[in-house]
């Protein structure tokens, strides 16, 4: 393809894309004017029906729980894929790691960074746990809280100790926690079926009043399962990738 032809191809394609974008934007509803019925409907009924004051969590883990289950398994599959692919590579490289390490010492982590990270580990874990356990009451939930708790593990690594990270999150344990989290979410749906209700129906007592931690039935439980699954999945992915890089760098 000659440069001239390439330029013309781009101009035609770019012009077409631009026109489509403008056409699409002109047809959008006005700022702040929500046209669909479902959002308003759920906003008005969710608190009474499910005793969950965070309607977003109620939607994610109950009204459209089946979709969320599918999303959960996307992350589960991604983590599984990463560990399968990288474990193979690790075995291949381990023989040469020692040779490559010669004269390639990684610079030590500064005390300031180490201290700052270590101080943040506990509070980060606590915030994550708070977000997971209060998903049905406040903004947040299993996914957000799980990602925050995984950040606490990343902070352990950033404080300079990959070994400490590995000791805190042994691969077998992380694998098991991830599988238990994802599996329990699916099993909760099957439990509803066994009792004669639709899949993932809210079968647990909803609690006496909306807005308390022990309210909202299965929503709180699913939030917990999703929380540990997401934490384990992120820790597994980050840990595997770090191990891969560090081994190849010959860093310990």
């Amino acid at each position: 393809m000659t440069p001239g032809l390439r330029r013309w191809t781009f101009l035609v394609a770019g012009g077409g894309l631009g026109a489509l974008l403008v056409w699409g934007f002109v047809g959008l509803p006005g700022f702040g004017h929500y046209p669909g019925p479902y959002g308003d409907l759920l906003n008005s009924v969710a608190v009474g029906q499910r005793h969950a004051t965070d309607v977003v969590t109620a939607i994610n883990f109950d009204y459209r729980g089946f979709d969320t289950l599918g999303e959960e398994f996307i992350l589960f599959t991604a983590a599984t894929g990463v560990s399968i692919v990288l474990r193979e590579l690790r075995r291949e490289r381990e023989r040469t790691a020692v040779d490559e390490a010669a004269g390639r010492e990684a610079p030590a982590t500064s005390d300031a960074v180490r201290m700052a990270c270590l101080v943040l580990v506990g509070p980060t874990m606590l915030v994550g746990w708070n977000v997971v356990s209060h998903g049905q009451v406040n903004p947040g939930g299993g996914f957000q809280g799980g990602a925050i708790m995984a950040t606490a593990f990343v902070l352990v690594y950033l404080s300079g100790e990959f070994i400490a990270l590995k000791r805190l999150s042994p691969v077998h344990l992380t694998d098991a926690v991830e599988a238990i989290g994802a599996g329990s979410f699916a099993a909760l749906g099957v439990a509803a079926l066994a009792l004669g209700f639709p899949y993932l129906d809210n079968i647990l007592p909803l609690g006496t009043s909306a807005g308390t931690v022990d309210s909202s039935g299965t929503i709180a439980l699913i939030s917990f399962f999703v929380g540990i699954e997401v934490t384990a999945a992120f820790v597994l992915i980050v840990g595997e990738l770090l191990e891969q890089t560090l081994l190849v760098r010959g860093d310990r």
Partner: protein
Amino acid sequence: MSALQAAVLVLVAGGATAVVLTRNPTRQVVLLSAYGITLALLFTAFQAPDVALSELTVGTVILPILLLVALAKVRRKEE
């Protein structure tokens, strides 16, 4: 649209442009992490705190660290 929302929109547009215009990959990752914070601000200003919480952790910590690890590995191969 409130003045706060307009200001955050401008901030996000500027941040995204800065990320795209950065040529050094390592700097780009650090900038991307900062850009994640502006996105979290955007979601907060538009009353989507659930999304803001996800963006805050995934966009500013998990994604940058995965990219940094990948960069470290690529650089090691090039040496």
